[in-house]
C-alpha cells in the first residue's frame, strides 16, 4: 500500500513551527517512514506546480502554520485545502492568529507608514511603498496583496483539527500524527490538546491560596519570581486560568508566567476578555470601598499594555477580531 501523502506549509509565521517539527529529532524518522512528504517549502524542493499536479484530496493531511494576511497565503491554503483530505491548523498563528495577529490593532496603512517610512532605521526619502504591480523595462513585476486584516486559518478555509501552541510541543505533534494516521479520527473541529485549563495541570496550583488577591502588579523582569509559588500570588500576570493545558507547563517550568499561547480553555469564547476579567477580579486592596474612581484607575494602570497582554495570541479569533476600520479605509 502506498504511504499516505503529507504536506507542510507556512503562511504569516516566524518559522518556529517549522523548527518544532525538526525538534521531533529521531521521531521525525518514524514520521517519514510512515508518510510520504510531498510538499514542505522550508525543507524540500517541491513547487506549487507539484501541488497543482496532485488530484483532489490526494494529500492525506496538510499541516499549515501561520496566519493569513496576504493574497498569496490565501491562494496557497485554498489550493492545499482542495488537494487534502484533512487540514490541521498547526500552531497559535494558524489556530488563533498568534503574535502576528496583534497587527489587527493597526491598519495596513499604519503598518506600511511605520515600516517603510517613519521608523528611524528606515531611509526612504522618495516614499516608495511596495506595489502589487510595478512596470519595468523587462516587464511587469508583481507582489502579493497585503491585507488589512490578519485572519486565522479557519476564517479562510475549512479546518479539520487544531494543534495549539507557539509552537506546538513535539510530544503533542507526535500524538496528533499518530492518532490521525491510525485512522481513529477525533471529532471534526477538535483542538488536539486537553480540555482543561493550564492551572489544572500546573505544578504550582497547590500554592494558590483559596482567596487570591493581587495587591500589586509586577512584570516578570522586575522581581526574581519564587519558582514554587503561583505567579498570580506573586503579583505577576499569568494567563493559566484561561488558557488550555497541554504545553507541559513549558513557561512555568522556566519560571515564566503563561502568556496564553495554547488559546482559550474549552468553553471560553474570547480569551482576552476572559483573561482581563480574571485578573481584574483578583486585583484589589483593603479599603477599596473608600477608593475614588481615580484611585481605582491608578491601580488598574499598573497593568501595562492590557490589550497586548490579554490578546497576545488570539486577537484575530476574538469577538471583535480587529481595531475598528475607519470609514476612509473601507
Amino acid at each position, binding site marked *: 500500500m502506498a504511504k499516505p501523502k503529507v504536506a507542510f506549509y507556512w503562511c504569516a509565521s516566524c518559522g518556529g513551527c517549522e523548527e518544532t517539527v525538526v525538534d521531533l529529532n529521531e521521531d521525525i524518522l518514524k514520521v517519514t517512514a510512515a508518510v510520504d512528504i510531498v510538499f514542505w517549502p522550508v525543507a524540500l524542493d517541491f513547487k506549487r506546480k507539484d501541488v497543482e499536479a496532485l488530484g483532489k484530496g490526494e494529500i492525506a493531511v496538510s499541516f499549515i502554520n501561520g496566519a493569513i494576511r496576504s493574497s498569496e497565503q490565501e491562494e496557497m491554503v485554498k489550493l492545499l485545502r482542495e488537494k487534502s483530505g484533512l487540514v490541521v491548523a498547526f500552531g497559535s498563528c494558524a489556530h488563533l492568529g498568534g503574535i502576528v495577529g496583534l497587527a489587527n490593532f493597526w491598519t495596513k496603512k499604519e503598518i506600511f507608514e511605520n515600516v517603510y517610512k517613519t521608523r528611524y532605521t528606515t531611509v526612504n526619502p522618495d516614499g516608495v511603498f511596495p506595489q502589487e504591480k510595478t512596470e519595468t523595462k523587462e516587464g511587469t513585476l508583481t507582489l502579493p496583496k497585503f491585507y*488589512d486584516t490578519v485572519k486565522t486559518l479557519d476564517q479562510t478555509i475549512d479546518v479539520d483539527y487544531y494543534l495549539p501552541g507557539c509552537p506546538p510541543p513535539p510530544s503533542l505533534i507526535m500524538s496528533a500524527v499518530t492518532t490521525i494516521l491510525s485512522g481513529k479520527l477525533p471529532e471534526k473541529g477538535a483542538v488536539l490538546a486537553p480540555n482543561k485549563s493550564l492551572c489544572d495541570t500546573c505544578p504550582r496550583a497547590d500554592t494558590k491560596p483559596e482567596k487570591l488577591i493581587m495587591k500589586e502588579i509586577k512584570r516578570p523582569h522586575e522581581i526574581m519570581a519564587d519558582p514554587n509559588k503561583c505567579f498570580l500570588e506573586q503579583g505577576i500576570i499569568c494567563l493559566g486560568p484561561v488558557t488550555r493545558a497541554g504545553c507541559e507547563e513549558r513557561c512555568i517550568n522556566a519560571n515564566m508566567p503563561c502568556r496564553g499561547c495554547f488559546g482559550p480553555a474549552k468553553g471560553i*469564547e474570547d480569551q482576552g476578555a476572559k483573561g482581563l476579567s480574571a485578573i481584574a477580579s483578583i486585583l484589589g486592596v483593603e479599603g477599596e*470601598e473608600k477608593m475614588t474612581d481615580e484611585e481605582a484607575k491608578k491601580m488598574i494602570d499598573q497593568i501595562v499594555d*492590557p*490589550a497586548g497582554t490579554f490578546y497576545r495570541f488570539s486577537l484575530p479569533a476574538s469577538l*471583535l477580531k*480587529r481595531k475598528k476600520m475607519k470609514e476612509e479605509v473601507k
Partner: protein
Amino acid sequence: MGINMGICGDVLGKKDLMEKTFEPKIICFLCNWCTYAGADLAGTSRIQYKPNGIPIRVMCSSRVDPMHILWAFKHGADGVLIGGCHPGDCHYQNGNYKTRRRVFLLEKVLKDFGIEPNRLKLEWISASEGRKYAKVIDEFIEEIRKLGPLAMEQSEE
C-alpha cells in the same frame, strides 16, 4: 451567553443604523437589587426618559462579563451602561468593586479596538434613585448621540 438573544437580535438590527436620524442603541445591564429597581421606580413614578436603553437584569453588576460588553458592541450597541449598587451596598459584598476594576481595565482595551471608552459607562444607582436613573440614561444617550454610531462591522480585506 447570558444575553437574551431574542431581544438583542431584534432591537439591535443594524438596518436603521445609518439612517439620517441617528437613534443610539444602548444596552443597560442593571443589578437586580438596585439599578433595576431604580429603573422600575422611574417607571412607576411616571418619570419621562428616552426609550433608547434596552434593560437586561442581572443578579449583580459583577455578573456582567467583559465578553458580554464586547458582544453587545460587536452586534450593534452604540453604548453600554452598567448599573450597580453604591459602594458598601452590593448584596455579594464586593461585586461592585470587581465590576469597577473590570470596566476601567476594559476601557483601556477598548481604545486599542478603536472604540471610544466613554461608550461604556458604570453608575451606582440605588433602588430609591428613579430620578437619577432617568437622568443618567438621558445624559448617556445624548453623549452617545454626539459620538455617532459605532458600526463595528469588519473589513473583509
